[in-house]
C-alpha cells in the first residue's frame, strides 16, 4: 500500500552505462517530480510532469530524460553515467486539486557510479 514507490533502492554501476529508475504512485496525483539529493543533502528538483506533459525542466544534462507512460508512473533514464551523477534520487507526487502544495516522496534510489 506504498503511496510512492521507486525501484531499485540501490544502483551501483560503471561510468558510461545507461540506467533507469522507476517510480510509481497510487495516490491518483496528477503531478510527479524527480529530485536529486547530493552528498551534502541539498535537494534539487530535476523534472516535473503534469498529465504527461513536462512542465518544469531544470538545467540538468540532457543525458537525463524523464519518461511517463501514464500519470501513475514517471521513470528516469540516465545515459552515459558520470561519477558526478552519484546521489540519491527521489520521486515525488502532488495533486493540483489539493493545491499541489504537499509533496509525497518515495524512499529514494541510491545511485553510485564507479
Amino acid at each position: 500500500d506504498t503511496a510512492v514507490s521507486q525501484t531499485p533502492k540501490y544502483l551501483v554501476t560503471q561510468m558510461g552505462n545507461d540506467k533507469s529508475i522507476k517510480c510509481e504512485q497510487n495516490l491518483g496525483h496528477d503531478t510527479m517530480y524527480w529530485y536529486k539529493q547530493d552528498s551534502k543533502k541539498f535537494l534539487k528538483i530535476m523534472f516535473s510532469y503534469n498529465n504527461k506533459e513536462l512542465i518544469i525542466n531544470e538545467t540538468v544534462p540532457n543525458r537525463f530524460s524523464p519518461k511517463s507512460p501514464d500519470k501513475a508512473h514517471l521513470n528516469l533514464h540516465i545515459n552515459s553515467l558520470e561519477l558526478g551523477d552519484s546521489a540519491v534520487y527521489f520521486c515525488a507526487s502532488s495533486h493540483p486539486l489539493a493545491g499541489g502544495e504537499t509533496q509525497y516522496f518515495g524512499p529514494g534510489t541510491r545511485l553510485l557510479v564507479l
Partner: protein
Amino acid sequence: SQQGEEDPQALSIQEGENATMNCSYKTSINNLQWYRQNSGRGLVHLILIRSNEREKHSGRLRVTLDTSKKSSSLLITASRAADTASYFCASNNYGQNFVFGPGTRLSVLP
C-alpha cells in the same frame, strides 16, 4: 542558486528540550513547508504555512512565518529521540517549483 537556507546546520539537544530551526528564502512565496527526512528515507511533509499566515501549530510543532524578513522557524517542543532526523524547509512560489534548503540535522539524545 540555492534559495532556502536552514540554520543551524546541525543541532543536538537532550530529550524533553525544545528544538528551534530557522529557514530563510529569497523570493516571494505562496506558502512555505517543512519536511522531515529520517536517515535513509524519503521526505515526509510536516506542516504548511501560507504567505498570509504568521503562525501555525500542529501537535508539538509550531511554525512561524515573517514575510518581511523572508524567514520561517520550526519549533519542536518536548523533543523525543524519535524526532532525530533532518528537517527541510521548502518555499513554493505561486505555481513554480519547490525550493528546498540544505536542511538542519537534529539529534535528540535520550
